[in-house]
C-alpha cells in the first residue's frame, strides 16, 4: 500500500514535466522539419510557433497527433490547420509588434495564439458558438490577454477596432465579404484559403493598394479548413 502511494506521488511529480519536455521537443521538431525545411524563414513566426502549446488547443482525442504534419478534426466540420499552413499564413502578412490583426474563423484558437505571440492585438471571430467559447477559455487559460474572441458572424468584421493591418480568413469562403475589405488598411494584406476540406487548396493574398485597386495573388496549394457557409 505504501509503495503504491509512493509511486503515485512520484508519478505526479515526474509525469507532467516529462510530458512538457516531450511536447517542447515535438514543437522544436515541428518547426525544424515542417516549417524551416519548407522555407518558412520569418524569425518571429518561427519563435511563435516554438512557443505556442498546440497540444493544449486540440481536442483530447487528438492530443497525441498535435504536432504531426496534418490538419486535425476539431468537431463541427472544422479542423485545426496543418502547422505549416499556420506558419505560412502568418509569415505572409509579415507580422510585427505594434500591429493589429483580425482573424475570421477562430476554430481551435491556434492561429490566434501564434499571432498573439508577435503582434499587439488579435481580434478573432468565430461563428460556431461552442468553438468560440472553447477557444476563448483555452486562450485565457494559456495567458493570451491580447486575444479578443467574439462569437458572431465574420461577414461584418469588427468595425469598432478597424482598420486592421492584416486580416487572416482561416475558413475558405466562396466570396470575400465587402466589409472585410473596407476594414483593411490601405496597403494592408488579407490571406484566405480557397478550396474544399482536406483537399489541396490555394492560398490567396488580397492586397488593398494605396490607389484603391484590389488585387489578388494565388500563393501556393494548401490544405486547410472547410468553410462554414455557402
Amino acid at each position, binding site marked *: 500500500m505504501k509503495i503504491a502511494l509512493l509511486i503515485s506521488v512520484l508519478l505526479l511529480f515526474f509525469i507532467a514535466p516529462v510530458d512538457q519536455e516531450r511536447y517542447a521537443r515535438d514543437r522544436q521538431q515541428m518547426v525544424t522539419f515542417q516549417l524551416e525545411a519548407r522555407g518558412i524563414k520569418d524569425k518571429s513566426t518561427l519563435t511563435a510557433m516554438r512557443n505556442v502549446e498546440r497540444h493544449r488547443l486540440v481536442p483530447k482525442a487528438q492530443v497525441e497527433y498535435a504536432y504531426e504534419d496534418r490538419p486535425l478534426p476539431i468537431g463541427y466540420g472544422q479542423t485545426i490547420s496543418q502547422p505549416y499552413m499556420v506558419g505560412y499564413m502568418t509569415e505572409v502578412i509579415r507580422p510585427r509588434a505594434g500591429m493589429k490583426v483580425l482573424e475570421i474563423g477562430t476554430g481551435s484558437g491556434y492561429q490566434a495564439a501564434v499571432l498573439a505571440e508577435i503582434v499587439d492585438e488579435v481580434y478573432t471571430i468565430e461563428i460556431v458558438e461552442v468553438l468560440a467559447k472553447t477557444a476563448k477559455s483555452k486562450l485565457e487559460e494559456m495567458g493570451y490577454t491580447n486575444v479578443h474572441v467574439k462569437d458572431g458572424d465574420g461577414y461584418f468584421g469588427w468595425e469598432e477596432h478597424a482598420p486592421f493591418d492584416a486580416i487572416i480568413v482561416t475558413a*475558405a469562403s466562396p*466570396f470575400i465579404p465587402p466589409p472585410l475589405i*473596407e476594414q483593411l488598411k490601405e496597403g494592408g494584406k488579407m490571406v484566405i484559403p480557397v*478550396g474544399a476540406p482536406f*483537399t489541396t487548396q490555394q492560398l490567396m493574398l488580397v492586397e488593398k493598394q494605396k490607389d484603391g485597386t484590389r488585387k489578388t495573388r494565388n500563393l501556393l496549394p494548401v490544405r486547410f479548413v472547410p468553410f462554414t457557409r455557402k
Partner: protein
Amino acid sequence: MGAFSYFNRLLISIGLLSLSMIAYQLSLMQYLSIVQWYHFAYMVIAIALLGFGAAGTFIAIFRKPLLGQIDFLLPLFMLLTGICMPLILWLSGQPFARFDTYLLFVERSQLWQLLLYELLFFIPFFFCALAIGLAFVKYTNRIGKLYFSNLAGSGLGGLAAIALFWTAFPTQIPYFTGFLALLSAFLIIPLHKRRIWVISIGITAVILIFLAFSPPSTLPLSQYKSLSQTLDLPNARIEKSANSPHGWVQYVTSPVLRYAPGLSLSFTGEVPVIDAVFSNGDWAGAVLKSPRESGILDYTTSAVAWELATPKKVLVLDAGTGVRTQYASLKGASEIDHVESHRLVNGFAEDQTELASDNTVTMYQQDSRSFLAQTEKSYDLISLPPIGAFGGTAGLGALQEEYLLTTRAFSLIFDRLQSNGFFEITVWLDYPYRNPLKIAATISETLAEKGITLPEQHMVCVRSWNTLTFLVKKTPFTPIEVQAVRDFCDRLYFDPMLLPGITAEERNRYNMLEDQVLFSLTDSIISGNRESIYETYDFHLRPATDDKPYFSQFLRLKSLPHLQEIFGNQSASFIELGYLIVGVTFIQSLLLAFLLILLPLFRMKKNIMNKGFTLIYFSGLGMGFMFVEIVLIQRFVLYLGHPVYSVAAVISGMLLLSGLGSWWSSRLKLSLSGIRAVVMLIVLLLLVYAGSLPLLLQAGMGFSIWGKTLFSLLLVGIPSFFMGMPFPLGLQYLSQRNEEAVPWAWGINGCLSVVSASLATILAIEVGFSMLMLLAAAAYFITLISCFLVKSNKDIKLAP
C-alpha cells in the same frame, strides 16, 4: 394444409421477402447518400450480394442440419431479417459505429469503422439470403418457380421503393420494409408452436409500426456535409423537409446565409441574405426572395453575357432554385424557359420566389437533355449550371454521370442557339487546373465538330479570383463586344482569359496566378493541339461523351507517382474520393468474398463433381448479369432523365423479366445443348446491344413518358428474359447430377456478383459503356465454354 398449398404460400412469402429486401436496399442507398455520400450506393450493392454469397456458403457447409429444421428456420430467418432492417440502421448511427468519409483522409481508424459499418449492413442481407437460399436448396426440383417468385418480388421491390420515397422519410422506410419481411414469415409459420409464432410476429410487427411513426433515431449526417455545417450557423432552421426518389430535400433559413459566388472585390454593397435548399444533405441552391436580389450577379463573372447583349429568349438548363432564371428576368429577357428535373427543388423555386407569377418565365419539370432533344425553339442565350463546387469537391463527383457536360450535349446546345446566340457556363477555379481545361476542351471539340476553323474568334472567358465564365458565340465576336468585355473586366477587377486579340499582360493583371500554365494549356487545347495535352497532362482532360459521361473524373492512375513527387503527402487529396471509395469497396469485396464465400467452400469441394464446369459456368453468369445491369442503369439515366428512375426501371424490369424467363425455363425440357443454345442467344443479343443500344435510345428520346416507359421495358426485357434462364437451368442440371454442388454454385455466383458490382463501375469509367457490354457478352461466352467442360457426357433431361 397440404404440401402444395404450403409451396404456394412459400412462393408468395419468398416474393414478399424479396420485395422487402430490394426496397430496403434502395432505401439504404438513399440513407447512405444522405448521411455520407452517394458513392456508398456501390458499397450497398456489394454488401447485399456479399450477404447472398456468404449465405450460400453457410448453407453449403451446414446443409443437413439446416434442411432438417427448415420448417422452423425459414420463418425465423425472415423474422430476423425484418428485425435487423431497422435495428442495424439504428446501430450504425451509434457512436461506436460512426464512420465519416472525410476523416478517411486523416484518421486511419476510420478504415476499421468502415469495415464495421459494412459488416453491420451485411447482417439483414445475410438472414434474408439464408431464407431464400434454404428454400432454393430444399425445392431445387421446382427452382424455376421459386426463382421467378424471388426475381418478380425483387422487381416489384424497386417500384415499392419509389412509392415509399414519395410517402415516407428515410428513417421510416426500414420499419415498413421490416414489417413486410415479418409478413413473409407469417405466411409460412410452422404448425408446431403456432401460437408462439403468431404472438412473436404480431408483437414485433406492432413495435415496428409504432416505431415507423416515431423513429428513435435521427439521421446521423457527416459533420462535413453542407447541411450539417449550415445547421451549425446561428439561428439556422429547417423550415420544410420532404422526401422523394430524387432525394431528401430541406429548405433552410438562417440570418447569416449569404450568396455571392466569386463576388468582385469592387463590390461595396450589402450581400443579400438568402435561404437555401439541400438535397441529401448537399447544397442544392440558394433561394432569392425577389429577382432584385439576383442583381448581385452583376458583380460576378457570369454577368459577362449580359454586358454584350440583351438576350430576349433565354434557356436556363438545370435551373435549380431559379437564381439564373431570376437574373435573366431582372435583366429584361422576355421569354425564359426554366428547365429543372427535381420536382421538390422546382416546387421550392415556385413557392418561395416570384418565378411562378413572372409571366416571362415558363417552368419545365424535365431533364435538360430530354428538353434539348425535344425542343425546336432557338435561343439568344443558353445558360448552363456552374461546374464543380467552390474550391472543388474532393473528387466526390468523380462517379457522377453528367450528361449535360458531354460533347453530344454541347452540340445540341449549340444547335439550339439563334444565329447570334451565346451559351455560357461558369466554372469554379480548381487547383491543379482540371475543370476549366476540360470545359475548354469540350467547347473546342464542339466547335470543331460544327466546322468552325477559328475557335478563338467564338470564345470568351473571364476570370475572377475563384471563378471563370466561358461564353461561346455562334458567330465570331465583334470588336465592339471585345471592347465591352475589356471594360467589364476593368470595372470589376476581373481578367480576360480568352478574348480575340488578347495580350499576355491583360490576362494576369488583377488576379495574379503563380504561373502561366492555365493560359498555355488552354491555348494549346483551343489551337488544336489537344491530343498531346490529353496524353501528357496528369489528369484526364478528354471531354466526356455519352459513352463515358464522367466529366468530373480526372484521375489518371499512371500520374500518381508524379503527383506524389510534386505534392508529397498532399497527393492523397487528388485520388478522387469517389473513385477511391469504389476502389476500396472493390478490394474489400474481393477479400471478403474470398474469405466468406470461396475459402469455406473449397473445404468441401472434394465431394463435388465437375468443379471446372460449376466454377466457370456460375462465375460467368454472376459477372455477366451484373455487367449488363450496370450498363443498362447507366444508359437509362440519360434516357429516363434521372438515376432513380433508371435504377428502378432497370432493376425492376430486369428482375421481373428474368423471373419470367426463369419460370418459362422450368417448363422446358432442356438438355445441356439446350442450355448452350440459350447462352449463345444471350451472347448474340448482348453483342447487338453493345453497338445499337445508344442509337435506339437516341431514336426514342422524343417519346412521351409512357412511350419511354414501354420502350425501356422492351429494351431491358428482351435480354433479361433469356438471362433469367441459365441460372435455374444450371442449378437444376447440377442438382440432378450432384446435389452438393448446388450451394457451391450459388456461392460462386454470389461471389462474382459481389466483385463485379464495383468492378463494373471502374470499367465503365475506364473503357465506357459499350465496351462494358462487350465484356458482359464475353462473360456469358465463358459460361458457354464451360458447357463443353462437363466430364460425364450423358445429357440429363431436366425435369419440368
